[in-house]
């Protein structure tokens, strides 16, 4: 969202989301907005998902990490993450490995703040807690149940650019959760659950529920734009394919959405506008 729609649109979303807790005189600083944002988050999700710090907090406390991990429990067929699986993962807790993960993500945030200071500042505003948990099924993730929280599970094959792409990837999911709250994309959430309305994910390249597919499309575009504008093209990448392949996959995703019968009827105007913007970005020079 930062690269796709710009910093101001990203801030607008966070401001609208937090407006109930703005100071009477209005919001004039990162500190005031972060305070309002966290006050509001604490009313819709557990308070331990937020932080008192003005920037992202690395969680290495085992008990707190476990509490955060339990918020990711999900019985969704594609993302099966059960209490039993979390319990087994906890038994694998490995202090030195967690220390490695924390150091990598600390270095990553320094690189983000330095390489793209406004993006780094937006990350520190929108993300409260980053936690580590040795669940092997994924490299990390986000959940709409705990906006502002990122689970990270990097392994030793990750380079610093991989970890930077990971942070951009997860920040995009979180900003998109907020966008969906203040300016929804879909007419009827139940209709999205019908398999005939599934499309192909740009990241996993398999059929998924439409809202998750739209997330994947904008994550893919964010990675493409970040690489082309400032991050550079990686020689190898653990998490995302080469830019030419990722651009192809994003276009395939758009086509698969447009192949759903009467696809426009599933979206509200904001959803249609975002897809139109995505089409334009993917057709622009440098995205082939």
């Amino acid at each position, binding site marked *: 969202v930062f690269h796709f729609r710009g*910093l*101001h649109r990203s*801030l*607008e979303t966070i*401001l*609208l989301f937090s*407006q*109930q807790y703005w100071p009477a005189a*209005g919001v*004039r*600083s*990162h*500190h*005031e*907005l972060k305070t309002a944002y966290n006050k509001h988050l604490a009313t*819709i999700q557990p308070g331990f998902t937020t932080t008192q710090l*003005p*920037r992202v907090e690395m969680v290495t406390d085992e008990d707190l990490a476990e509490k955060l991990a339990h918020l*990711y429990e*999900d019985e*969704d067929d594609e*993302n099966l*993450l059960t209490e039993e699986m979390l319990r087994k993962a906890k038994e694998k807790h490995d202090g030195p490995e967690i220390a490695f993960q924390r150091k990598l993500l600390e270095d990553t945030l*320094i*690189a983000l*703040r*330095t*390489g793209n*200071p*406004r993006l*780094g*500042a*937006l990350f520190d505003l929108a993300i409260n807690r980053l936690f580590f948990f040795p669940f092997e*099924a*994924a*490299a*990390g*993730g*986000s*959940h*709409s149940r705990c906006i502002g929280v990122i689970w990270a599970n990097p392994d030793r094959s990750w*380079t*610093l*650019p991989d970890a930077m792409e990971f942070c951009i*990837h*997860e920040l995009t999911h979180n900003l998109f*959760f907020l966008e*969906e*709250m*203040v300016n*929804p994309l879909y007419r009827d*959430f139940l209709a999205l659950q019908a398999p005939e309305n599934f499309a192909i994910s740009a990241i996993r390249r398999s059929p998924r529920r439409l809202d998750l597919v739209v*997330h994947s499309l904008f994550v893919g575009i964010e990675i493409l734009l970040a690489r082309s504008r400032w*991050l*550079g*093209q*990686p*020689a*190898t990448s653990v*998490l995302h394919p080469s830019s030419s392949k990722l651009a192809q996959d994003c276009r395939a995703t758009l086509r698969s959405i447009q192949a759903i019968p009467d696809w426009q009827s599933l979206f509200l105007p904001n959803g249609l506008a975002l897809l139109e913007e995505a089409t334009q970005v993917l057709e622009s020079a440098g995205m082939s």
Partner: protein
Amino acid sequence: MHDEAGNLHDEKLENRPAADVENLLDADIETVAAGLNKPQRDQAAQNQAGQLRSGGMQSRLVLLRPNS
């Protein structure tokens, strides 16, 4: 910014104090907040209340798996 091994190289990559970053967006935040009008804010508040009521936002788990 990357060498052949994919490592990031940039002489600016020093440890920027977090406090610098925290003030960086102040002017942008003030500008954007001042530009939000009442109908826009009311619509966003109404949308958000609807999303929270419907529970549609309670079920989005997005896991990242390494590139295959």
